[in-house]
């Protein structure tokens, strides 16, 4: 079971890369970048997983040492939270740029947004 999940995460990464490379609509490229970002976040959460583990929240009748033996790793979760926020900022910027691009070029087609050459 465990290997299949990691391979699926890499498959998601490849789907995102395909969308960025092969698609011509600006919005689809944005979705592709998001998929890449979320695939790496998913891999990061999976790295901290422990089979049969619990959430890393200390219950009222546990000590910290007891929690550490059954809980999943909390550090990747903190990293993923930061990474999601970074992805959010990137998304907002990308969408704002796509809107401005449409105002200037009148189209969302990357093949026609090609003023810069050389």
């Amino acid at each position: 079971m465990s290997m299949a999940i990691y391979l699926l995460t890499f498959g998601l990464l490849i789907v995102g890369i395909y969308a960025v490379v092969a698609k011509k609509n600006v919005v689809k490229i944005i979705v592709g970048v998001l998929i890449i970002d979320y695939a790496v976040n998913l891999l990061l959460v999976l790295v901290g997983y422990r089979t049969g583990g619990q959430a890393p929240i200390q219950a009222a009748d546990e000590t910290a040492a007891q929690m550490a033996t059954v809980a999943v790793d909390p550090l990747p979760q903190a990293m993923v939270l930061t990474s999601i926020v970074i992805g959010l900022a990137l998304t907002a910027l990308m969408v704002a740029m796509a809107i401005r691009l449409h105002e200037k070029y009148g189209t969302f087609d990357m093949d026609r947004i090609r003023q810069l050459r050389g």
Partner: protein
Amino acid sequence: MNALVPLFVAVPLGAAFVIVALAHAGGLKRLTGPLAVAAVVYNLVAAVIFLGVGDLSVFVGGWGGPGKTLGIEMVCDGLAKLLLVTINLVALVSIVYARGYMRRFTRVWLFEALFLLMTGAMNGVVLAGDLFNLFVFLEIAAIASYALVGFGCEAEELEAAFKYLVLGAVGSAFILLGVTVLYSLTGHLNMAKVAQLLPAAAGPATMLAAASLLGGLALKAAMVPFHAWLPDAHPSAPAPISAMLSGVLIKASGVYALARIVFNVLGPSHPYATILMVLGTLSMVVGVLLAIGQWDFKRLLAYHSISQMGYVVLALGAGAGVVAAGGERAIAALCIFGGLFHLFNHAAFKSLLFLSSGSIEQQAGTRLLKEMGGLSRRMPATSFCCRIGALSIAGVPPFNGFFSKLVIIVALMLSGHPVLAVVAVGVALMTLLSFVKVQRYALEGAPGARSAEATEAPASMVVAMASLAVVCLVAGLAMVLLRDHLFTPAGDALLRGFEGAKDLVTGAMP
């Protein structure tokens, strides 16, 4: 002194937030510019003062743990100090230049806030002692730079910013992938601890981590297979941002991170050294070949950035190769000295060239070389600074470019790569050719259609360019002095490798 290290990041960030608040406060709006300049001046003065202190490290938050090592570490060793001085010097010059250049834009407070965010984040990148902290500050600097490239909101600028954004986002995702795999192998994020635990956990996963990290960072450093964003992004940005991007962003977030990870985390072994040398050589050659045929001044400068970064990465790779082969430490130190000296010099003269191209663009209204001409008579100060920058990058003595290229070529010969040394000499000659063309068309000759009515640039822009010109002249003549105080500690920080890991992490290791 240890506790003051985070202020390098906190002061620019705090100033950025205060600027956003002040800009909506009516009469206080005039204070935003001086506040931005004051924040960067503090950073530069602090960076110079810290040069005299030894190696510093602080665990932010002071959360204790075994040996007081739990938490995010900020490390200020020799390499970090060199880059701090470089980043803050170029940032100061750019923000002073921007006082004159940005007058034709609205919302200048937004520019200053984003600029300070980018500067604070770049300071954070070079001070990071922790892999994930490096990634977070890299992202902050990158996102601020995406917004700044498209600041003018014209059609071409938006297109360039969008392409830069998409490619940069993919590169950053690969960097995070590499950090993830390293964490899953070693269980730590602190660079020193990962370096100690990585050899024991070696396997195919290490190759995946190294490949993703090196690929993502090579994209940030604009090495040749991954350079496609740079020729569009750097010319389209406003001139002070082009100077910052080409002058420090590709160095702090690209080359510095590459050097830090290859030398201090992964360990300089043969595969990594070969990869660095291949990337460096390709960038050197392809960059200058593509630059020769350019007629847009800023696009030409952007391609030359790729080529000069190739010099730096090639020298660092040669140093790594010497260490991996067990050669003499003095030769490896010479290679690294050449690479780091060229990094500092390139920051100085490339920023100078971009700033002067911005001045020409503002006063003469054009970026195309064929439409300029005779500017040495119409704009004497700008063209004098531009000439100094062109002579520096072409490698003409007594300016700084000559000395750093000489050290790189000698180091390549000594470390056993005579063919690469000859290639480096050839690339230097082609760079000289390209800048002779620039001087002939832009500064000499009959005035073109647009440059006949050009006047001199405003005082703040001229002061900024003149300061960088002075740095270009002095850095070459004072090479020995700089080497002893600035570059040898930086090279030692890289060469320490695994020994440095034990010094910086106080307390017992499991």
